[in-house]
């Protein structure tokens, strides 16, 4: 059975890819993901803001008590090789690229133009086969128009594409007014692939402390609906790779995403829940399903239920809603 797929121009032995998450934060974790059966690994994101924060906090904390009192002109030993900047991340990219057979995809979350472009180049130089842009922007400024927000995203894509030669994927937000148009503009501006969709930090409230608290829950299978819809809609219409992420827990979600049109199916939550070796289980599930349904290759099933391929394309649009309503009507009551 041929499970091979192509994502961002890379040949993958199967479509199950480990998405950016804590498991890929160490070389050991990446190797475990490879050993566990992932076809590629997207590394956890290099956060420009985190590097800035680290630098600034180091600068502040080391100097906060310095040169104040004659007995204690400093509180820490002088350190010559305090590593700041992206070196740690780049080392990981380098080591992972050298020691793994599967493709290593870098992931970048920048905040400045220079951060996006310079770090992208660094990641490329370190050996990443591709780069995923983890663009995270909450337009809390209520005077900002939707077009302006979109332009910010597109600007990042243009700048990064101008800086690197490796394929670049955009991990998209689902919160654009016209997702299809936005996807097209990403591709028009150079994106080689789209990852649908990014899960954003959405804080919760702590009712005891009356404080806003960070909260990121692992995804649940029901979350596949939105990406499933859009992959099905976009498949075949854009000249780019499509990857699905969110809600993958079993082979069923893998199959669904492939049939919608995904070139790769990504998961972190399932691997966190079940361990790095769970990728193999997902692939086995996929293989069993294909066997059962007599599919010879992933290529065969890819996009088979996309909007262009289903019997009723409108089922992805208005009809979807109607179908839900109609399901209340029992054929037995006339």
């Amino acid at each position, binding site marked *: 059975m041929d499970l091979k797929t192509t994502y961002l121009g890379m040949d993958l032995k199967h479509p199950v890819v480990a998405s950016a998450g804590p498991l890929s934060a160490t070389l050991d974790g990446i190797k475990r993901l490879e050993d566990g059966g992932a076809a590629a690994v997207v590394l956890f994101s290099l956060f420009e803001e985190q590097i800035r924060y680290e*630098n600034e906090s180091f600068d502040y904390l080391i100097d906060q*008590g310095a040169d*104040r*009192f004659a007995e204690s002109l400093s509180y820490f*030993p002088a350190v010559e090789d305090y590593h700041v900047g992206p070196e740690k991340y780049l080392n990981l990219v380098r080591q992972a690229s050298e020691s793994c057979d599967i493709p290593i995809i870098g992931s970048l979350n920048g905040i400045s133009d220079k951060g996006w472009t310079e770090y992208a180049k660094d990641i490329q130089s370190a050996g990443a086969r591709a780069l995923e842009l983890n663009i995270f922007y909450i337009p809390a400024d209520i005077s900002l128009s939707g077009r302006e927000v979109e332009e910010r995203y597109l600007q990042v894509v243009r700048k990064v594409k101008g800086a690197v030669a490796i394929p670049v994927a955009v991990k998209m937000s689902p919160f654009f007014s016209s997702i299809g148009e936005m996807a097209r503009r990403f591709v028009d501006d150079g994106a080689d692939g789209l990852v649908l969709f990014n899960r954003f930090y959405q804080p919760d409230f702590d009712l005891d402390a009356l404080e806003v608290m960070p909260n990121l829950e692992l995804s649940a299978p029901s979350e596949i609906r939105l990406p499933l819809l859009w992959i099905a809609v976009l498949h075949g219409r854009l000249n780019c790779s499509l990857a699905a992420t969110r809600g993958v827990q079993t082979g069923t979600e893998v199959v669904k995403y492939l049939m919608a049109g995904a070139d790769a199916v990504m998961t972190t939550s399932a691997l966190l829940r079940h361990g790095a070796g769970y990728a193999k289980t997902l692939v086995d599930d996929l293989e069993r399903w294909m066997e059962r349904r007599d599919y010879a290759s992933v290529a065969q099933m890819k996009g088979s239920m996309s909007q262009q391929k289903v019997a009723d394309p409108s089922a992805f649009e208005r009809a979807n809603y109607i179908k839900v309503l109609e399901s209340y009507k029992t054929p037995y009551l006339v």
Partner: protein
Amino acid sequence: MAEAKVTTIDGNEAAADVAFRLNEVCAIYPITPSSTMAELADQWTSEGRTNIWGNVPDVVAMQSEAGAAGAVHGALQAGALTTTFTASQGLMLMIPNMYKIAGELTACVFHVAARALATHGLSIFGDQADVMAVRPTGFAQLASSSVQEAHDMALIAQAATLQARVPFIHFFDGFRTSHEVNKVTLLPDDVLRAMIDDDLVLAHRRRALNPDNPFIRGTAQNPDVYFQGREACSPFYAAVPGIVEATMEKFGDLTGRRYRLFEYFGAPDAERVIVLMGSGAEAARETVEFLSERGESVGVVQIHLYRPFSARHFFAALPPSVRAVAVLDRTKEPGSTGEPLYQDVTVALAEAAADGTWSGSRLPRVIGGRYGLSSKEFSPGMIKAVFDELAKDKPKNHFTVGIVDDVSHSSLDYDPSFSTEGEDVFRAMFYGLGADGTVGANKNTIKIIGEDPEFYAQGYFVYDSKKSGSQTVSHVRFGRKPIRSTYLIDTANFIGCHQFNFIEKMDVLAHAAPGATVLLNSPYGQKEVWSKLPRNVQQQIIDKKLKLFIIDGAQVAREAGMGSRTNTIMQTCFFAISGVMPRDQAIAKIKKSIEKTYGIKGEEVVRKNFDAVDHTIAHLYELEVPDTVTSTIEMARVVPPEAPDFVQKVTAMMMAGRGDELPVSALPVDGTFPSGTTKWEKRNISSFVPIWEPDICIQCGNCSFVCPHGVIRSKVYNQSLLEGAPETFKSAPIDIRGFPETRYTLQIYVEDCTGCTLCVEVCPAKSKEETGKKAINMGWKEPVLAGEKESISFFETLPVNDRSRVDFSTVRGTQFLEPLFEFSGACAGCGETPYVKLLSQLFGDRLMVANATGCSSIYGGNLPTTPWTVNHEGRGPSWANSLFEDNAEFGFGMRLATDMQLREAARLLKSLEAELGDELVDALINAPQITETQIRRQRERVAELKKRLVALDGPATKHLLSIAEQFVRRSVWLLGGDGWAYDIGSSGVDHVLASGRDVNILVLDTEVYSNTGGQASKSTPIGAVAKFANAGKQVGKKDLALQAISYGNVYVARVAMGANPQQTLLAFREAEAYSGPSLILAYSHCIAHGINMQHGLDQQSRAVHCGHWPLMRYNPDVRLAGENPFSLDSPRPTIKVKEYAEHELRYRMLYRTNPKEADMLMDMAQRGIDQKWKLYEEMAATGRG
């Protein structure tokens, strides 16, 4: 020879750089001002730097200087080239080993940053009392007077000791040389190799203990041979001057820098000569040059080799024309015939006269004088005064210079305006805050200018006595000749005032030379700034024709994203307007230096600094100075008129920076100062202060409990007392049912607040409508200041709450107890002082405190103002600091005296029972004194006793009257940090705990030597980076609690106020109530942890919840009741130690420098915690360990 490198460094680095390269073992212990030498040695070892033989020296921190000396002795005996670095009390602790090392003729060098000894008061500053105190040990003594000499003499001493076998002290003046930054030509390794004879190194090894060639050393000797054996070393001492002379000769040949045992500078036919050693010699040399050029017949003999004192060489240095000699000692030896150097000179001359070896026509007159104690200034004016005195027919002997001695009339008058400094030296003074980076920027400027081969540069920095809101004054000189001015700048060409509010507090222009350039960092714009200057400032600007430049540093910093750090901005301004270097060249150099300094901290930090430089020039402008004074603003009064007389006359002078002007008569004769003086020093160091919201407040007292500075006070009172309250005065109905007419007020002493924000962090009450608003919130001080001052005045008129009616058992209750420790100069948000304040609240009116040297003795007892205060009845903690190492014993002594006097009082009372009445006598002796009510009743009985005693007569009566107050149970507490309790004072703590006596030990555990700048102690946790543990602490901290528990009769508690304040309170009360020894280990977050101090309490909580700091109590009284004395007060760990550690830079540093090691140590830490927790749980379950 390799080309010598020139650099700008301080004296400590200069000495350590050579010492490190010439030794194999360094045994170290931190003590100001020598700590830097030890820190550098440790750092270099961790970086893998090698000595000249290619080995990385083993640098080992010990538990005390006594321990370091012992380790040095042992390493020497085993054949390693070994050194140590110390000062002051540290050197005192080394004395026993020094006798041994010298007695065994063991080659080594101790490098000493000479410092005052603790006598009537402790001083961290420079004089030569310490090195003079070790004269009899048999160490040779070689003195350096400059940073270059500290470098060179370190080598000369090492080369000489190997040949002479006599150990050396190489010393230089603490701070003046150890901390002065100056331009130095570094000695390359090949010079060191050429100077150190390897055969002598091998000989040193051959003399070592060696089982292959065994012998014994250190025998016990008897009257028959000890004396002769002691004399056997004499030839070695006789040879030392010749050896040092030859060594200096060789050194001169190699480097071109020539030294002599006694250097003479001045007219060859000088009649008046000053003799001295150390940094003062540089100023003396400068003065002699100045006076000689003006025809005065003067000279100076600068001593390098002080011990052994070679009269022959001394005489050779003296010009034969000399008629009068003034010998200056930087120490005082009370009761002597004169200070040490004076004695040496007079004895040498007397002996020469007696044996006919004096070659001159007649013996010169010799007078001796003291100068420069505790870094007191020693200026050309003072030196000239000494020369002038020598010109008199009957010069004053045993004089002092630099002070006004109106008691013994020893002092010489001098002209403070006398200056030897010419226009060829550019002199700049910078007034800054510790927090604004002024000192760092100036050090950087000195480096930049010092790099220019045409220029010489010197920097010396004066720091505050407070750790928060501290001010700094930088004295910076540049010139084309070497700078020997070892004294502060008196008239400056450039004044930088980096904080606008200084202009109202101190006379920053007093030292401005006519026509000087003044740079003022001002938040006020061009139109406003002149009107904001006080009258005398305007006057001086006009009178002295000063050029005034203005920059809004804060605005530029904000624009560049630099926060509050204005260092780069002010540095750029200096270069832009001072003219010391072409502007563009200077800016290029600043940027280069920014890259070097901040490159390690990341591109972003570099970029921000670059932005700051670029923005600065655009915002800098010269103010057109008006012709007339228009201001009505007067300089702020130092203390209010209602302050006590001593505070007005003495303390206020110190506060105003004019302590140097105080005459001897103004100072206490025995170091005794009045309590409670911080209240008179309204420092106003924070622009943000807590604002109380009475409507939201639940009156829990948490904010008051944790306030490190005692600025949050509470009172409850009858509402009728609100009559006449100012409008700004806030109150709320008391939040307890059944008190309808009672009001509650939480008063913030805003002028004393440091802005640490712990109160806001701990406040649990939030507005229902606006959850971001608490019952206490930080707000701008300016709008509320005037109103709050009125409110404070009114608040102080309200009656103090009756202690006997306060619930001592709750945090809520303690807020109504007067804090008798207030407004200390500790770091903003200090983790120690809330415990100290709590102690003062609970037991302050009968508290005796023995305080180990360290942070707590500094914020507790550093002049000018001190925080231990008195209550409304005039009672309060009696506090004393003895030393660092002896505090347990010192406090124990207080207990012994107290117990003795109580017994004696009881005996006398019994003897007067018939006259005083059975009932009173019985009650005085037997009444319980546990609760506050009981103590109050006992006070009444004592008052009654005194009344009755006054009516009686006889010796027993007088004696009893003198000690009658002992009937009120005294609470003796021994305070100190972990450096004391775990390390240097460990044996004393152990012994006192084993005594069974009623003492309470409070360890303010910051897990590091905080006061001396963050060196590792035995309390430092595994994985934490600290000085002396650069690569992360490799072993876990000592469990002092378990150690104490093992005695069985010691009350032990481990507390963390930020995790469980109620448990803290309970532990303090139980410890005090327990009639035997008690030990409380109090987790104290600290600036040395590398945390945002605002979150210190959160971090305490994490320390507890990860199991690093399990809360516990062990109460032997409970065991007597048949129950388990061990109580584990914190829940099973809920987070991993890494989750706690990642919030602290001390751990994060290792993750950056060596992540694998960090992971390994963190795993070990976790395993250690898991094991310890099991043990604690078992103890809690079974009562057994």
